[in-house]
C-alpha cells in the first residue's frame, strides 16, 4: 500500500513518512461530568504538521478512548462553531487551533455549564430539551 493516498481531508488516515523521528503532542485533558471534580488525563498523540487540536481529539477517540466527550459537527470547515474550548487557558475553536508537538492543556469553556469532559451547554436556553414535563 506504499502508493495509497493520504486522507488529508479526514485528518485521521494520513500515511506517515518512514524513518522520521516521531514528534508527540502531549495533551492534558480536563475530564468530568457535571458536578464532579475535574481530573486531568494525559494522552500522547503522534504529531504531524498542519493538524488541528480537533484532529488530535478525534484521533484519541478512535485510537485510545471513545468515551472522551467532545462536540463538533462540520469537522473542520469552521462553520458550525460548536467545537469551542480552551487550549492553555485561551478560548479557541478546536478545528482552527493548531496542534503543536509540546504539552498542551485542553479544558472546557469555564463560563458555560459543564455537560461532560470538553462539552459545555452552549445552546441558547430556548433551543434545549425542556427540563421536565
Amino acid at each position, binding site marked *: 500500500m506504499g*502508493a*495509497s*493516498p*493520504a*486522507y*488529508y*481531508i*479526514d485528518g*485521521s*488516515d494520513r500515511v506517515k513518512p518512514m524513518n522520521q523521528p516521531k514528534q508527540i503532542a502531549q495533551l492534558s485533558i480536563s475530564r468530568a*461530568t*457535571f458536578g464532579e471534580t475535574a481530573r486531568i488525563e494525559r494522552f500522547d498523540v503522534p504529531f504531524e*504538521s*498542519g*493538524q*488541528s487540536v480537533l484532529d488530535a481529539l*478525534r484521533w484519541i*477517540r*478512535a*485510537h485510545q478512548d*471513545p*468515551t*472522551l*466527550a*467532545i*462536540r*463538533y*459537527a*462540520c*469537522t*473542520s*470547515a*469552521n*462553520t*458550525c*462553531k*460548536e467545537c469551542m474550548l480552551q487550549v492553555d487557558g485561551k478560548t479557541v*475553536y478546536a*478545528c*482552527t487551533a*493548531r496542534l503543536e508537538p509540546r504539552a498542551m492543556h485542553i479544558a472546557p469553556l469555564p463560563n458555560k455549564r459543564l*455537560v*461532560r*469532559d470538553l*462539552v459545555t*451547554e*452552549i*445552546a441558547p436556553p*430556548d*433551543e*434545549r*430539551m*425542556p427540563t*421536565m*414535563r
Partner: protein
Amino acid sequence: MKPSVKTIEADVLVIGAGGAGMYAAIEAARQLGPDARVVLADRSLIGRGGATIMAQMTVAVAMGHQQDDHWEHHFNDTLTAGRGLCDPALARLLCEQGPAAIRELDDWGVGWARQDGRNGTPGSTVPMRQAHAPGHDRPRCVYVDFLNTGPAVSKTLRAQLNRMPNIQRIGDLLVTQLICEANACVGAVALDISAGTPVRLNAKATVVATGGLTRLYARNSASANMGGDGYALCLAAGAPLIDMEFVQFFPIGHLAPRLIGMDPIMWDPFRYKLGGRLLNGLHEEFVHQYGASDAGQYVVTRDLATYAITKEVAAGRGSPHGGAWLSFEHISEAQLRAAGGPVIDRLLANGIDLTRQAIEVAPIAHYHMGGVQADVHMATRVPGLFVAGEAVGGANGANRLSGNAITEALVFGRVAGESAAQYAKTHEQCVTDTAFVAAVNALVQGGAAVSGFNPAAGIETLQALMQLDVGPFRTAEGLQRALTQISALQTQMQHAKPAAGVPYDTALVDWLDLRTMLSVADCVTRAALQRTESRGAHQREDFPGMEATWERHLRITSMGQIESSQ
C-alpha cells in the same frame, strides 16, 4: 412506559435543522397557525449542523437576471445531468418552484450577490448576479459573497424560525427510531444527548430532513451528522429507498497542503469565477483526453472530472498525495483578490499563495442522489411520514447538476412542511404505548461504555472500506469484499452497545451512528452490485457502458429486498 421518559407533543415533528428542515418547520408553522406546535429537532445545535451551513457555493435557479431564462431550461439541464434517471415530477418541482424560494429568502435578507458587486438588501431592485456553473446552458447560479452562501441561508432561516413562537426548537436530540401504529407514522423516540436519556416524541405528522450519507466515506465534504440517519429511519419504518447506488463525488475536494478552518469544496467558486487549470502529476492538462474541455473555462461535469482524475491517479500520473493539481498561478493577484476577497488572506494564513503554487485536489464524497422515495407532496409510502432535501431520492437521477442541492433543500422543505401541516390538520393522533416502549427499551439496554469494541474506530474502518471499494469506481469483486466487511462489523458491534444514561455519551452516539451507517452502506453496496452498467455517478469498471435496459430505478424495500422499477 416508565414515568421518567420525557414526552414532547407536536402537530408536526421535523427531524433535522439544515436548510430543508428549517424551511419545513417555517412552512408548517405558517400553515397551522399560532395555536399549533411544530417541533424542530436536531442532533446538533439548531441551524449549525448539517450540510446547508457548509455550502460555500451557489444555488441554481432560473431567475433570468443574468441572461434570459425559464425554469424549463433549468429542468432540461437537470434531466440531462441525471442521465435518464431523474424523477421528472420531482425535478420539475425543484426547477419550477426554485425562484419563489429564492425570492422569499431575498425578502428575508439573505443578501444574494447583485450586479453592482454587493450583496443585496431586502427590497433591492438591482438584478442578482448569476454564475455559469458546469452542466448549465447559461448563467443560472446565485450566491452570497464571499463563499458565504450556506452560512447566509442558514442564518436567514434561523432568524425566521426564532420569530415564530409556535416552533419549538430542540438541539442535541438524536432520533433513533420512527414509531408506526396501524402502518402510519405517529412520532419518534430519540436520545437526549446532553442528559443521556430517552425522549418520546408524539407527532401527528413527521418530516425527515436529515440530509445525506457522505460521512460513509473517508474522503468527504460532510459534517459529522451526515451518516444517512433519515434513510435508515425511513427504511425501518417501511418507506422504500431508491437510487441508493448513486453517490456523487465532488471532483476537486481539497487534498493538500493541509488546510484548517476551510470547507474542502471551497475551490469550486474560484473555478466558476476564474477557470483555473487542472493538471496531472506531470503538470499536463488531461481532462480533454477524457472527452471534455477544460481549457481555462470551467465546463467539465462532475462525474467526468471524477473519472478523469481517478484514471490519471490509477495510471501513475497523480499528484503526490493521490489527486490532481489545480493551478491559478497564471492569474494575477488582483483577479484572485477580486474573486476570493478575504479568503485569499485565510489561505495565506494557511501558508498557501495561489500566485506561486498549485494545490492538490481529489474526488471526495459530496452528495447522495438516492434516498427515500417520495411523491411531489414529499409524502413517503408511510402515511404521516414526509421527507425533504437530500433525504429525498430521485430528483437528481444518476448525477446531480451543480447548484441544485440548496434549491432542493428549500423547495422540498417548503413543500414537505405544507404537506405535513395539511396531514396534521386532517388526522387525529391515536397512539398506544407499545411501540414507543419497545423503542425506549432498545435505547436503554446495553452494557458499560468501554466494552473492548471502539465504535469511533469502527466508523473509521467503515469509511476506509467504503472509500476503497464503494467509491466512484466499482467492481463486483470490490463490492462483494465490502459486503463481507460490512457484515463482519455488524457482528462485531452487535453485543457492544453502551446503555443509555450517561450525559453526552459519545461512545453511545458513535455506536448508534455506526449501526445506522452500516445499514445504509449495505443498501448502497448491494444496489451498486446489482446495477451492472455505468451511469452518472455509478461507474462499474467491469461494466463500463451505459445500457438502455438499465434506464430504471432500484428500490430497496423495508424487508431488505431490491426491486427494479421504471
